[in-house]
C-alpha cells in the first residue's frame, strides 16, 4: 500500500467516525457499521484469495454470526441467552462477571453443568472447523470449474461454498446433538444461576421468584377475566343497540 493509499484510508476512516458520532438516525449508523465491517471482510477475502493464503477463517461460524466483531462483544451470545425481560439493562454487573463471582459458590451440580457446557462448546468448535474445511473444498471446486475470477464471482463462490457446507453438516445427527447439548447445558447453567439467586434472595428477605411468578400469573388471569367481562358487556350493549335500531 502506497503512502497515498494510506492517507486516503485514514481520511475515509476519519469521515466514517465523524458520521458514526454525528446526529444521523441510528438506523443509518447501524447500516454504515454493517457495510463497513462486511466491506472489510470481503476485501480481506479477495486479498487472501489473491495471495493464496489459508481461507478457512472466512467461514468461521461464530464470527459470521457476529459474536466476535466490533459491534458485538464476544460475550453477546451469553447475554442474548440470558437477557430475558431486559435483565441486562437493569443489572449493573455484566452477566459474565456475575458468573465469575458465582462460580466459586456453585454446587457440584453446577460445576458439572459448566463442564458439560464446555464439552459441548468444544465439540461445536470442532464441527465449525469441519464446516470451514468442507467450505474450502467446495470453494476450490467452484473456482476451478469456473473461468470467471471476478471479485463478484469469487464472493458468490464463497457464499455458495459456505451455505452448502453448513447445510450439509448442520443437519447431521452429530451437529444436532451437540447443539442440543449446548443449549441444554446453557439452560442448566441458567437454572443454577436462578437457584443461587433464589437462595440469596431468601437470605436477605426478598420475595421468592415463585411468589413473583404467582403474582404475575394472578395479574395475567385478572387481565383475561376482565377482558372477558368487558367483551360480554360490549356484546350485550351491541345487541341492545341493534334491537333499538330495529324498533325505530
Amino acid at each position, binding site marked *: 500500500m*502506497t503512502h497515498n*493509499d494510506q492517507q*486516503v*484510508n485514514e481520511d*475515509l476512516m476519519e469521515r*466514517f467516525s465523524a*458520521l458514526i458520532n454525528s446526529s*444521523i*438516525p441510528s*438506523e*443509518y449508523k*447501524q*447500516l454504515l457499521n*454493517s*457495510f463497513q*465491517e*462486511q*466491506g472489510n*471482510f*470481503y*476485501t480481506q477475502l*479477495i*486479498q487472501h484469495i*489473491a495471495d493464496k493464503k489459508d481461507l478457512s477463517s472466512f*467461514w468461521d461460524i461464530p464470527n*459470521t*454470526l*457476529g459474536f466476535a466483531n466490533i459491534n458485538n462483544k464476544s460475550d453477546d451470545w451469553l447475554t*442474548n*441467552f440470558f*437477557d*430475558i*425481560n431486559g435483565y441486562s439493562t437493569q443489572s449493573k454487573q455484566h452477566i459474565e462477571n456475575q458468573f465469575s463471582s458465582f462460580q466459586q459458590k456453585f454446587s457440584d451440580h453446577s460445576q458439572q453443568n459448566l463442564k458439560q457446557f464446555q464439552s459441548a462448546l468444544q465439540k461445536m468448535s470442532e464441527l465449525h472447523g469441519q464446516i470451514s474445511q468442507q467450505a474450502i473444498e467446495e470453494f476450490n471446486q467452484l*473456482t476451478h470449474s469456473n473461468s470467471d*475470477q471476478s471479485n463478484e464471482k*469469487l*464472493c458468490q463462490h*464463497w*457464499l455458495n461454498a459456505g*451455505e452448502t457446507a*453448513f447445510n450439509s453438516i*448442520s443437519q447431521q445427527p452429530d451437529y*444436532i*446433538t451437540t*447443539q*442440543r447439548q449446548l*443449549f*441444554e447445558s446453557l*439452560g*442448566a447453567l441458567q437454572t443454577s444461576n436462578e437457584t443461587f439467586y433464589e437462595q440469596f434472595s431468601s437470605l436477605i428477605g426478598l420475595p421468592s*421468584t415463585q411468589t*413473583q411468578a404467582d403474582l*404475575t*400469573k394472578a*395479574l395475567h388471569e385478572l387481565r*383475561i377475566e376482565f377482558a*372477558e367481562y368487558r*367483551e360480554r358487556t*360490549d*356484546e350485550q350493549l351491541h345487541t341492545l343497540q341493534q334491537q333499538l335500531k330495529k324498533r325505530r
Partner: protein
Amino acid sequence: MLATESITKDPWQDDLVLFMDNIETSAQQPPAVGTAPKSCIYKENKLRLFRYEPLKTKQKRTPILLVYALVNRPYITDLEPDRSLVLKLLKQGYPVYLIDWGYPDASDCHTSLNDYINSYIHRCVTRVCRDANVKKIDLLGICQGGVFSLCYSAIQPEHIRKLITLVTPVDFHSEGNILSLWTRNIDTRLVCNTKKNISANLINQLFRSIKPYQLNRDKYRHLKKLINKPVQLDTFVRMEKWLNNGPDLAGTAALEFVQKFYQGNDLHTGKLSIGSHSIDLKNIKCQVLNLYANNDHIVPPSSALALKKHIRSELYQEQELNGGHIGAFISNNTQQALLEKITQFLK
C-alpha cells in the same frame, strides 16, 4: 484456479464513499414504516386491533382480519406504500383489520397459546364482526399467525367465511425443516422457562443462523445497488428495522409452541389440543386458500402443503408463490400474483 492479481485497493471503498455522501445529504429521518392510516378499535393489555381507513372505492361487504406471527412485527404487511399488502387490499375495497400483538413484558410470561387463540383472536374476531356489522369474516393468517388462524377456524368455524393461510407450517417434521431438526429432541424444560419470556435477540439469532453466510454477510455486499437507487436504500433500512425490532416471546406460549408443534407435530398428527379444545382441522367448514413460497427456508413448501391432507378437497385451493418466506408477500414481483389469487378467492 484462484485469482492471482495482487489487490492493493479496497474494492468496496468507492461504494462506501458514495454511501456516506448519500447519507450525509439525505438521511435526516429514517423512512417511516406502517404508514397506511388506521385507527385502534380495541385494546387488551399489549394487543391492539386496528381498522385501516377505507380508500375511496366501492367497499366489499366482508372484512379481512390479518393475523401475524408472534415473532417479528406485523407492520411487514404495510412496510412501505409500494410494497404494502394492506394498501393493495384496501385499493380492492376490502375492509382490512390487523391484530398487533405488541411487545410482551415480564408480566405476560404466562400468556399461553390458549390465551392467544381462544381469548385474544376470538375477541378480535367478534370485535371485527360487530364493527363491520357482519356475522362472518375472512381470516388471513401469516406464518405462525396462519397456524393460529387454522386452529381458530377449527374451533369456531361459524365465525369464518373464508380462510387464507400464507407461508404457514402444518407438518413441522417435513423434509428440510431445519428449525424442527434442531429443536425436536431438546429438553424444553431446561431451555425454556414459563416464568420468563424468550428474548427477541435469541430468536433473531436463531433465524439468522439458519443461513449464516447469506443472512449475516452477503446481504450487505450489494451496496452499489442501494446507492444507485435511493428507494432501494429506504426499503433496505425499513427491512433492517423490521428484522431488528422483534418482540420478546411470552415464555408459556413459546414453550407450548415448541413442544406441541416443533417437537410433537401435533397439528399434523391430529393430537393437538389448545385449552379445552381438541383441534381437528377437518372441522374447518369454510373455503381455504393455502399460499406457500417455493424458496422458503423457514417454512418449507412440503410443510405448508401438508394442509391439503386435512381439508376437504372441495374446500381447498393452493397456490405457489415465487420467493422466500417474506419476499413472497412483500416483493413487487410476487405481490401482484398474490393479490390476484386472493381477490379471486375472496369473491
